[in-house]
């Protein structure tokens, strides 16, 4: 398929359309062996017993405040999580602010209070930053960029690999974040109990890693949701991934909202969920440890690595059927009826 002439919204959706843009325009310009690892952070090999992990993310969420969080909290958590899923302990964060003329200073105070609270929660410091202001209408109120560095103990930095029978775990109910933001943006007058799950996952992840459990692969299920991670696992390791629909935690209200909008909960973004692949024999222990952490009380084993080497993600449905799961394509759009 030919890349479109202009950038479309779908190019930012975290799905196949974005992959194409990165493959055809971004990676050819800057590609190298570290980028090619395709992890959430770039890992620099220093001498000694640590590797340095570095990551960066831009935050343009609209509205900047939504049930369960705001752009400040998400900017810290997103970057902390990208480090944490690479096995890194976050050390410091750089924060870039792009503010539009007219944005209320009281709102900025609120965002910064969230930044501070989330950083404290994650045990990380904002160590440098930058502030720019653009003319009214050139940006939608406020955009944040955060970069983070962290240290990965060499022992935790292994080439990711998965094997038949490995278990796939998640630390709680999915799809809350994407729906909370979508409802806040599109139906601001609707009162809903759905709140974003945005949270720093480094504590939970460290809690699992410290136990010596062999975590083969992990990724936070942000844009493109659990479907994005599961299909990436299937393709990256050339393995069948089997998910059990009945085992995947979804809150009732979230499921209903997704149904109403015609969205697949598997494809909806999370900001506080990590998908872990662990050796089958460690699955129960990993589950126990995840559940012992406040951010993992509703953790579940949601699937496994299958026998087949066809890189396809399959979902065993609640009603006893099965279907494949694909990475979403571009923008998520609500349906007509």
């Amino acid at each position, binding site marked *: *398929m030919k890349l*479109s*002439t*202009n*950038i*479309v*919204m*779908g190019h930012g959706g*975290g*799905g*196949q*359309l*974005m*992959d*194409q843009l*990165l*493959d055809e325009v*971004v*990676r050819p310009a800057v590609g190298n062996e570290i*980028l090619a690892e*395709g992890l*959430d952070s770039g890992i620099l090999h220093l001498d000694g017993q640590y590797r340095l992990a570095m990551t*960066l*993310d831009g935050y343009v969420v609209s509205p900047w405040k939504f049930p369960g969080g705001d752009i400040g909290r998400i900017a810290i958590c*997103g970057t902390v*999580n*990208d480090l944490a*899923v690479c096995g890194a302990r976050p050390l410091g964060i750089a924060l870039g602010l792009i503010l539009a003329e007219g944005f209320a200073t009281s709102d900025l105070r609120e965002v910064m209070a969230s930044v501070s609270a989330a950083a404290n929660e994650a045990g990380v410091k904002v160590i440098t930053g930058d502030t720019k202001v653009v003319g009214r209408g050139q940006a939608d109120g406020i955009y944040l960029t955060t970069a983070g560095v962290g240290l990965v103990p060499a022992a935790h930095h292994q080439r990711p690999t998965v094997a038949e029978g490995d278990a796939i775990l998640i630390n709680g109910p999915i799809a809350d974040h994407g729906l909370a933001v979508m409802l806040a943006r*599109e*139906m601001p007058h609707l009162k809903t109990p759905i709140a974003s799950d945005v949270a720093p996952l480094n504590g939970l992840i460290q809690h699992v890693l410290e136990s010596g459990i062999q975590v083969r692969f992990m*990724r936070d299920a*942000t*844009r493109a949701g659990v479907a994005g991670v599961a*299909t*990436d696992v299937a*393709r*990256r390791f050339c393995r069948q991934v089997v998910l059990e629909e009945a085992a995947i935690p979804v809150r009732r209200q979230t499921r209903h909202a997704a149904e109403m*909008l*015609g969205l*697949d909960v598997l494809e909806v973004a999370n900001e506080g969920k990590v998908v872990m692949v662990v050796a089958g024999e460690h699955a129960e222990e990993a589950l126990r440890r995840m559940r012992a952490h406040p951010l993992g009380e509703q953790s579940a084993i949601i699937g496994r690595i299958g026998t087949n080497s066809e890189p*396809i993600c399959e*979902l*065993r*449905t*609640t*009603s*006893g*059927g*099965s*279907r*494949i799961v*694909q*990475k979403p*394509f*571009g923008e998520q*759009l*609500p*349906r*007509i*009826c």
Partner: protein
Amino acid sequence: MTQDTDQFLERLNAAAALAARPLAFMEVCGTHTVSAFRCGLHEMLPANVKLISGPGCPVCVTAQGDIDLMIGAADLKDVTLCTYGDMIKVPGTRGSLADARARGAKVKVIYSTLDAVQHAQTNPSEQVVLAAVGFETTTPATAVAILEASKRGLKNFSVLASHKVLLPALRALLRPSSDGGGKIRVDGFLCPGHASIILGSEAFREIVDDYAMPCVVAGFEAQQMVAGVARLTEMIAEQRPALDNVYPQVVKPEGNTIAKNLIEQVFEPAATNWRALGTIPASGLAIREPYAAFDAIRRFGLVAEDAPEPAGCRCGEVITGRCTPTDCGLFGRRCTPMAPVGPCMVSSEGSCSAWFKYGRKRDGAMEPKAGIGA
């Protein structure tokens, strides 16, 4: 698997064995198409029972000329085109609404028709055009928008209506086609749960009476769809075509009279052009004279042109049950959800999209790659 689903599956298997011939039931509604794939229904059915897609996906049945009309309206100066999300990516003769938006046209995705009315009221310098598509399910909401705009005296709100009426399309399907293709082989209709909430289950009585065609109104859960297919199969096995409603919790025999009256108040039957089915008399809805001021066609002097369907695209055959998506040479090759050629690949309710997304994919389908950043 729930116990209920199990029981209906048993009944279905027994009836299918008794019928002892291949059976094809048409799920008329796009939501059924998607639900069937999402719950893996196809592989639960007996070997001699299959489901084929019908003309019930609003995006898929919209004629190419009507899509061009929407894009043309979006390109007009000062116009903000409000649309349901599904229409954004449908390719017209010259690109899609997403392309129009990328080159600067104002295109707004709405969730409720009243959002468009409200947008018109708060932005008096813009001409707000609501691109209204869909069957009886969405038409009442368009009627409400027109009535509300009329009540508020809005001069900058209008509707580009390409609403469709379901029953004439079902009748057209059952008549031998003019191109000599013959009528489709369908053994019964799994009637749409949502549209039937408005229409009422009794609306399908004429199909049963005139064509001896079994009709069962069903909901969208796996168990409800299995129940629907089981009832259809039982009717065939008993050689007793009938009308049944296995979704009585929400579908009443008479439907929603208030909604039907709203449609009647604002719209009148008109011939309309369908993708694949061509022009069918009284299968569309035109805005009645008292509300002519809200008709975008008249306000902007828009002219619908006959636009050919994309070369090689078999969407028309897909939505009339004449072929399955995988029979189309473009499917999964030139036509994917990322670069759709036909509307059935665009709409989240489209048969091709569901097939591509949830069905076992064929060789050569788009292979996603891992991304930078999370």
